[in-house]
C-alpha cells in the first residue's frame, strides 16, 4: 500500500515545520532531478498535487521513501590528518623536517570522519570550483554536526549509509511503519525540533504528530547558517567558538519559495571568504543573519519582473542562536525577524559603515529593534540611541579600539549630517548637529589655547607661530584633550551632573541664537545628548589604520 500525505502551510505548528515542508519539496525535486528512483525497483515518490502556494499532496511507497532518505542522509568519509597521537587511525605517514638545524621525523596520523553530504546544497554553493568544497556548504556541515546532530547517536543514519553503501534501511522502515498512522503522536526530540527537549519542566513528555515530525527531517536543508562573533575581554571579535546563528525561513508561499530558494543561494550569496568561512556569514548580531537572508530574497525578487514582494515569500525568519559548548548545545536566544522592506534596505546601507565589533552591534541592535507604523513604514530608532549606556559601561581598554573613532565619525557623516535637510523645525538646526559642532569647536579651541596648535587639515598641524609640527605630536595632543573630556562625560551618568558639566565646559561653544532652543533640548533629551557628546568627542580622535585579525570588515 502506498502512503499519501497532504500538508498545508497554515496547519503546521512552527516555522521549523514550514521550513521542513519546503525542504521536503526540494528533496523530492532533487530525487527526480538525479533520477535516483532507478536505484530501487518500482520506487514511487510523486506529488499527487504539485506544490502550490499553500501545500502539497505526496504519494510514495517504501522504496520511494528509501530513495528519499538515502538522499537526505547521504554522507561521505572525509580524510583528515593530525600529528596528535590518536588511538583510531587508518595509517601513519612519516615526514622528515628540519628543526633548529636538526633533522626530525614528524608522524602524521591519517584518519577519516563521516560528513553529511547535504543533498542538493553543495550544487548551489558557488564559492569553490570543487562543488564539494565550498565555504557555505562547509559551514552548513559544521553546523549540522555541532548543533542539529551533535550527539553521536543522532548521526547513525549518516554513518550507516556510508558504511553500508546503500543497504541501510532500518530508519526508513521504522518511519514507514509509523507513517501507517500519520495522525498519531510520537515523542518530540531535539534531534528533529531544534531547541526542544523531550519533556517539559513539569516532566510532561513533548509530543509531535508523526506526519508533522516527518517534515523536520528536511528542515535543515532550508537553514542558512551564520557565525555571530563573541567579544573577548579586549572587546575584539573572537570567532573561534562553535557559535552559530541558524536562520529558518517561515515560508509563506510554498511554490514560490521552493522555486526561488535555489537561485537565491546560487546567485545572490557572496562567495568571498575569510579563512575557511564565507565573509557574508561573519556577523556581529544573530538577527543580522535574518536581515542578510531577507536581503538575498529581496535581491532575487528584484531580478524577477513579477509583482512579488518579500512578504509573499516568507512570513518572517526565525533565528536560533546556538553554541556548541563542551558536550552540550547552549541556546542563547530564539528571535523572529519580520520581512520589513525598510529594515532590510537600511541594513544594506549601514552594514559596512561600521567596523568596530561592539559599536556595530549596538548600531544594528537599534535597527533590529525599530518598529513600523500602520502603513508598514519603518520608524527607525536613531543610530546613537543606547550609546550613552554602552560607552559608560564598557572597560576603558575597549575605547582604544582603532575603529571606534572611525565608526563615530561615520555615524555623524552618513547618518546625522546628511539628514540635516530633513529638519522638522525650520528655525533651528537639529540638536545632534549642534552637539557635533560644539565638540569640534571645543577640541580645536582647546588645542589652540592650551598648546598653541592649529590643525590645518586632516593630517597636518602647525604652531600659532607658524612653525610646523609633526602629525604624531598633534595627534597626541588631540587624544589628550578628547580623552579628558570623554572621561568627564562618561563618569557623569546622573542627569544633573551631566548638565552641569555641559553648561560649564561646552556651552561656550553654542552659538548665541541657538542658546535658548538648545537649553530646552539639553533638559528634555539629556540621555541622547550625552550619547551624542560621547560620540562626537570620539569622532574627533585621529584615525589609526590597523589590521585586526578575525575581522569581518569590508572596508
Amino acid at each position: 500500500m502506498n502512503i499519501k500525505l497532504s500538508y498545508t502551510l497554515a496547519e503546521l505548528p512552527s516555522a521549523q515545520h514550514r521550513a521542513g515542508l519546503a525542504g521536503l519539496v526540494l528533496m523530492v525535486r532533487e530525487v527526480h532531478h538525479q533520477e535516483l528512483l532507478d536505484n530501487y525497483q518500482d520506487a514511487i515518490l510523486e506529488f499527487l498535487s504539485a506544490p502550490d502556494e499553500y501545500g502539497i499532496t505526496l504519494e510514495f511507497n517504501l522504496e520511494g521513501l528509501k530513495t528519499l532518505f538515502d538522499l537526505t542522509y547521504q554522507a561521505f568519509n572525509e580524510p583528515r590528518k593530525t600529528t596528535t597521537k590518536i588511538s583510531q587511525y587508518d595509517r601513519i605517514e612519516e615526514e622528515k623536517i628540519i628543526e633548529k638545524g636538526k633533522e626530525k621525523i614528524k608522524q602524521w596520523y591519517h584518519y577519516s570522519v563521516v560528513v553529511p553530504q547535504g543533498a542538493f546544497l553543495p550544487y548551489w554553493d558557488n564559492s569553490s570550483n570543487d562543488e564539494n568544497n565550498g565555504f557555505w556548504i562547509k559551514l552548513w556541515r559544521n553546523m549540522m554536526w555541532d548543533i542539529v546532530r551533535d550527539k553521536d547517536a543522532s548521526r547513525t543514519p549518516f554513518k550507516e549509509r556510508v558504511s553500508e553503501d546503500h543497504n541501510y534501511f532500518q530508519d526508513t522502515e521504522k518511519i514507514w511503519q509509523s507513517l501507517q498512522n500519520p495522525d498519531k503522536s510520537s515523542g518530540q526530540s531535539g534531534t528533529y525540533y531544534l531547541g526542544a527537549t523531550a519533556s517539559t519542566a513539569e516532566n510532561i513528555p513533548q509530543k509531535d504528530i508523526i506526519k508533522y515530525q516527518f517534515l523536520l527531517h528536511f528542515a535543515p536543508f532550508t537553514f542558512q547558517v551564520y557565525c555571530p562573533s563573541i567579544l573577548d575581554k579586549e572587546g575584539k571579535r573572537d570567532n573561534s567558538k562553535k557559535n552559530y546563528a541558524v536562520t529558518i525561513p517561515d515560508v509563506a508561499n510554498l511554490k514560490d519559495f521552493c522555486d526561488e530558494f535555489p537561485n537565491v543561494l546560487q546567485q545572490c550569496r557572496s562567495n568571498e571568504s575569510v579563512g575557511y568561512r564565507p565573509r557574508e556569514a561573519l556577523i556581529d548580531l544573530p538577527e543580522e543573519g535574518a536581515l542578510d537572508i531577507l536581503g538575498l530574497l529581496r535581491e532575487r525578487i528584484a531580478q524577477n519582473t513579477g509583482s512579488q514582494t518579500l512578504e509573499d515569500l516568507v512570513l518572517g525568519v526565525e533565528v536560533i542562536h546556538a553554541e556548541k559548548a563542551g558536550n552540550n548545545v547552549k541556546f542563547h536566544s530564539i528571535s523572529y525577524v519580520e520581512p520589513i522592506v525598510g529594515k532590510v534596505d537600511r541594513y544594506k546601507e549601514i552594514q559596512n559603515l561600521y567596523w568596530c565589533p561592539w559599536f556595530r552591534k549596538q548600531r544594528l541592535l537599534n535597527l533590529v529593534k525599530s518598529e513600523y507604523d500602520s502603513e508598514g513604514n519603518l520608524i527607525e530608532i536613531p543610530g546613537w540611541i543606547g550609546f550613552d549606556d554602552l560607552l559608560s559601561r564598557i572597560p576603558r581598554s575597549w575605547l582604544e579600539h582603532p575603529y571606534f573613532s572611525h565608526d563615530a565619525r561615520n555615524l555623524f557623516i552618513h547618518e546625522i549630517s546628511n539628514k540635516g535637510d530633513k529638519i522638522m523645525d525650520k528655525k533651528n538646526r537639529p540638536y545632534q548637529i549642534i552637539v557635533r559642532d560644539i565638540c569640534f569647536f571645543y577640541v580645536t579651541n582647546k588645542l589652540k589655547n592650551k598648546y598653541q596648535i592649529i590643525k590645518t587639515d586632516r593630517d597636518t598641524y602647525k604652531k600659532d607661530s607658524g612653525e610646523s609640527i609633526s602629525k604624531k605630536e598633534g595627534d597626541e595632543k588631540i587624544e589628550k584633550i578628547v580623552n579628558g573630556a570623554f572621561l568627564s562625560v562618561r563618569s557623569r551618568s546622573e542627569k544633573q551632573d551631566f548638565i552641569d558639566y555641559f553648561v560649564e565646559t561646552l556651552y561656550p561653544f553654542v552659538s548665541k541664537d541657538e542658546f535658548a532652543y538648545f537649553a530646552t533640548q539639553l533638559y528634555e533629551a539629556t540621555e541622547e545628548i550625552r550619547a551624542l557628546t560621547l560620540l562626537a568627542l570620539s569622532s574627533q580622535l585621529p584615525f589609526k589604520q590597523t589590521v585586526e585579525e578575525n575581522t569581518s570588515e569590508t572596508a
Partner: protein
Amino acid sequence: MLVFLLLEAPFASFRPFQSGSYRSTTPVPSPSTIYGILLNLAGIEQRTETDKPITLIRDDLPDIEIAIGVPHYPEKPKSEIAVLSQQLHNYPVGASGKELAKKTYGNKYWIAPVRREVIVNLKLIVGVKSDKSLCDRIVQGLNGELNEPRYGLPFAGDNNFFFDNIQVLEKLPCTRWYCPLEDNTRPNRGICRLTTWINRADNTKTQIRVFYPSDNFVLEPPESAWSKLPH
C-alpha cells in the same frame, strides 16, 4: 451576551509548547489560557482530580467565544519584552544528578540556567461571548461577590505574575485583534502560534493555530477574531 475586559499586568509570560534553555513568550496569551483565566474568575474548576502527575481537564465545560486584542492606550506605558537569566529547578534528561534525586523525594533535583522572555506592562482586551449567566458569574467573581468556594488568584502565564487590574469596559479603545490565519489569506506581520485548546494527556491533541494581529486599530473585533472553546 457580550462582555469586554481590560487586563493589565506589570509582568507576564506566555510560553508556547516548547521547553529548553531558552523560553520565549508569545506576544499575547492564547485563547486556551484566557479560557482558563475566565473560568478561574467565575470560580469554575476546570481540572479533574489533582492527584495525578499531569493535571487533566474536565470534559463538561461551558462554551465561550473569545477574542483577544492589544489596545492602543497612548497615555499608558508601552509594553516591551525583557530577557532574564535564571537558575531553574528541573528534572534532568539522562543520568545527571541521580544521587541528588534520592534526597528530593520526587521533586525536581537538578538545576539549570535558562533564559526567559518576560513581557513588561502587558495590556490586553478580551472579548467574551457566552450565556448571560456565565458572563454575570465572571463579573461577580471578579468583584468577589460569588458565594462559591474558590482557590488562588488569576495570573498572567506564570503564577507569580498577577494582574494589577481586570475591569469590564463600557467603551472599547482602538485595538489590534488577533485573528487565525485562514488558508487563503495573507497576513502582513506579527504572526504567532497560539493554542486554541490544550490536551495535557496527549499534546498532539492540543490545537495550535497561527494568529496574526489585524493591520489596523479597530473598535470592534472582526468576526474571524472569535475562537470558540472548548474545541
